[in-house]
């Protein structure tokens, strides 16, 4: 594997020019990262192709690859664990000892956790990785008293073990807290346990996928936001001020499906990872027509957002002038997740009212989400299943078929959600106050209007015919397999549907994790010394490159045999294509009121 990291001047925003940088600075750049304070696979470093391990840098003048032997190739696998003994914590002295012990083991791990080794372990190189595959990440939420709030393990399994884990976590975290310190993560072998402390709740994720720490941390932040959307931050604070031994599951009773669907969603959703929106690809005039129908009347004084969604993606979003959608990017994900939670989407009711707290909008109260499906999921589901079986030549139907195959790999909670995401068109109206009747009547009117003027029909047709998604192969760029393009001014991303060889769940997880590693490095999210402008990784299976400029971020995956020049050309070609298709790919100029 080769890898190069370099800084380009931001002066070439729309064309990728091979950066004219001397190899040495970028090499030292890599080393900076390695010696950074976090034991995270910040930068994939060479060694995957055994003896051919090298650091490669782009050289503009020669247009050749410069290979430097990497002296730091470290193939030893650390077995260090950072599991503290909670028995040792009572006296000042023993507490200090434990802490020192933890520090020591953590820092040993830090030194050894050479990024290469991590990536080595993570990629399908070593046999045990292949055996193990991507073991589901485990998530725990507990109160700061050590009481369980949520565990991602299947219900009923290992309840006693789970409560023991929570007890240990609480004890471990408190050792550090008493010293005014916060435990961020524990690395042990391939496993990383990430902690997020949001008193009175503690969040834990155990993952052996090899993703950057910032990724699991953001998962935990999303979990926290979802929980706050259900109980509100101020209620949470009040309850635990009164009673430190409160069993929060009493309040979250029935809300677990929201958390499960969030965890399913977050696994592959790059929009969530980049705090951006991934809107449904749609003909611009249709999108505009639909949006105009959604502008609320003056009677609806307390309306915050009106959102139309299909396939779990936003079609359009109408908002008041004063409230921009951008900081609410994360809310939209929480809202969409809520809408597509099986308990909502499968509800036989024609509409649902859910109180939702959007913490950054107002941490003390709920807004009301009125959710109605313009196209009933059950009817569409039948047609969906029929087409998937009947005819496999059509592009859209091939997507459906591959989704079915993927689902049958055994992620049960996804099955329902995914099927319905592929068919339902949901209208969500977020409002404060109690104007229930007004909102309901208005939504009925809008539904009727969309139906009468043919917009709904056109939307359904677009979704069913596969025009709302595309494949990388359609771009006709040699060697291009997949990409993610983020328009920074729009705070939106676009990406093609996954296709061969990334059509299996594990392959998608591989690619997403590679994207995450690059995204993390480019944004220096895990304590790296500086941002990168460009990062290039080559594995045995593919080349992945990330590139950030003022107007966009681009992540491309290409065939591993492409020369660098072709990679650069492909990246430029993708940006040109996105520019050309921009009006369809992004939600622009959505109406405000």
């Amino acid at each position: 594997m080769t890898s190069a990291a370099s800084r380009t001047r931001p002066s070439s925003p729309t064309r990728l020019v091979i950066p004219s940088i001397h190899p040495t600075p970028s090499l030292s750049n890599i080393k900076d990262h390695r010696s950074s304070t976090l034991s995270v696979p910040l930068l994939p470093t060479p060694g995957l192709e055994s003896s051919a391990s090298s650091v490669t840098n782009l050289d503009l003048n020669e247009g050749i690859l410069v290979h430097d032997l990497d002296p730091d190739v470290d193939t030893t696998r650390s077995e260090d664990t950072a599991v503290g003994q909670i028995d040792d914590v009572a006296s000042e002295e023993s507490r200090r000892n434990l802490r020192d012990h933890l520090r020591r083991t953590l820092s040993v791990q830090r030194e050894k956790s050479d990024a290469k080794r991590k990536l080595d372990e993570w990629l399908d190189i070593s046999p045990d990785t292949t055996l193990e595959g991507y073991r589901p990440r485990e998530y725990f939420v507990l109160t700061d008293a050590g009481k369980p709030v949520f565990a991602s393990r299947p219900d009923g399994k290992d309840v006693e073990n789970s409560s023991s884990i929570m007890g240990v976590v609480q004890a471990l975290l408190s050792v550090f807290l008493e010293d005014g310190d916060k435990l961020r993560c524990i690395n042990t072998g391939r496993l990383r346990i990430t902690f997020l402390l949001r008193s009175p709740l503690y969040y834990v994720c155990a993952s052996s996928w090899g993703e950057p720490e910032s990724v699991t941390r953001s998962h935990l932040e999303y979990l926290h936001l979802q929980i706050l959307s259900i109980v509100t931050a101020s209620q949470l604070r009040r309850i635990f001020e009164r009673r430190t031994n409160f069993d929060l599951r009493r309040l979250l009773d029935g809300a677990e499906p929201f958390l499960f669907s969030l965890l399913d969603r977050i696994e592959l959703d790059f929009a969530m990872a980049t705090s951006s929106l991934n809107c449904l690809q749609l003909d611009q005039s249709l999108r505009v027509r639909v949006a105009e129908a959604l502008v609320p009347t003056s009677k609806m004084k307390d309306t915050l957002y009106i959102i139309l969604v299909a396939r779990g993606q936003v079609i359009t979003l109408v908002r008041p002038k004063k409230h921009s959608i951008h900081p609410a990017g994360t809310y939209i994900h929480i809202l969409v997740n809520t809408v597509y939670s099986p308990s909502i989407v499968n509800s036989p009711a024609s509409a649902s009212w859910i109180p939702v707290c959007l913490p950054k909008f107002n941490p003390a109260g709920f807004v009301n989400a009125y959710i109605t499906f313009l196209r009933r999921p059950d009817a569409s589901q039948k047609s969906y299943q029929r087409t998937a079986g009947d005819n496999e030549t059509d592009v859209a139907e091939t997507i459906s078929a591959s989704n079915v195959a993927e689902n049958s790999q055994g992620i049960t909670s996804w099955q329902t959600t995914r099927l319905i995401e592929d068919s339902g068109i949901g209208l969500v109206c977020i409002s404060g106050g109690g104007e229930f009747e007004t909102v309901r009547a208005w939504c009925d009117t809008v539904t009727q209007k969309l139906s009468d003027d043919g917009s709904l029909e056109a939307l359904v047709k677009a979704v069913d015919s596969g025009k709302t998604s595309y494949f990388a192969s359609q771009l006709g760029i040699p060697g291009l397999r997949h990409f993610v393009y983020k328009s920074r001014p729009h705070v939106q991303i676009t990406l093609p549907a996954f296709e061969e060889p990334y059509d299996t769940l594990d392959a998608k997880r591989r690619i997403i994790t590679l994207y995450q590693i690059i995204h993390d490095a480019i944004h220096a999210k895990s304590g790296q010394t500086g941002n990168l402008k460009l990062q290039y990784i080559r594995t045995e299976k593919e080349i992945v490159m990330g590139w950030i400029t003022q107007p966009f971020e681009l992540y491309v995956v290409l065939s591993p045999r492409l020369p660098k020049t072709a990679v650069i050309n492909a990246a430029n070609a993708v940006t040109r294509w996105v520019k050309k298709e921009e009006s369809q790919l992004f939600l622009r100029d959505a109406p405000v009121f």
Partner: protein
Amino acid sequence: MRPQLLKVIILGDSGVGKTSLMNQFVNSRFNSQYKATIGADFLTKEVTVDNRLVTMQIWDTAGQERFQSLGVAYYRGADCCVLVYDVNNSKSFENLNNWRDEFLIQASPHDAERFPFVVLGNKIDVDESRRQVTQKRVLAWCQSKGNIPYFETSAKEAVNVQEAFAVVARNALQQEAEEQLYVDYPDPIQIDRESTQSYGCNC
């Protein structure tokens, strides 16, 4: 719904049999060899109380004085506190006051007056002639502290251990049930579209 978790803290002087009581309750085992607990340890056990399945997370703490300030983290959110003394050691009984105070200060439960404690007088298997604390004396103390339930136990011979922990679980649960669930549904939010205050950037 998953079983509720009850956090139980066992406190008392060194050597009164806290670990043995926990082991007898959780594992039905007794080991006569004394091994001081260092810091704290916990075991979990699922029990059924009045047809409700609950998980008891029992924190065994070290009795030695040098460990006495375990810090708020261990006590925080406890549902019941078990105070243990050795009936053959009056000093360990007299210290119950300190243990109780220590707990109330560290855990600072919402309603200290009504927080459930249970007192266990352990080692009743030892010859009666060596007994130093009379039942009358203990009961008087328990009554003065708000009618704390009292059990005389033997971890060694498994006397009254299950019974005592059943009361621990029941009283912890009862206290929980009495507590009103303050789900005060907040007032609806007024979304002021005209306000100049902007929530977030407009980039």
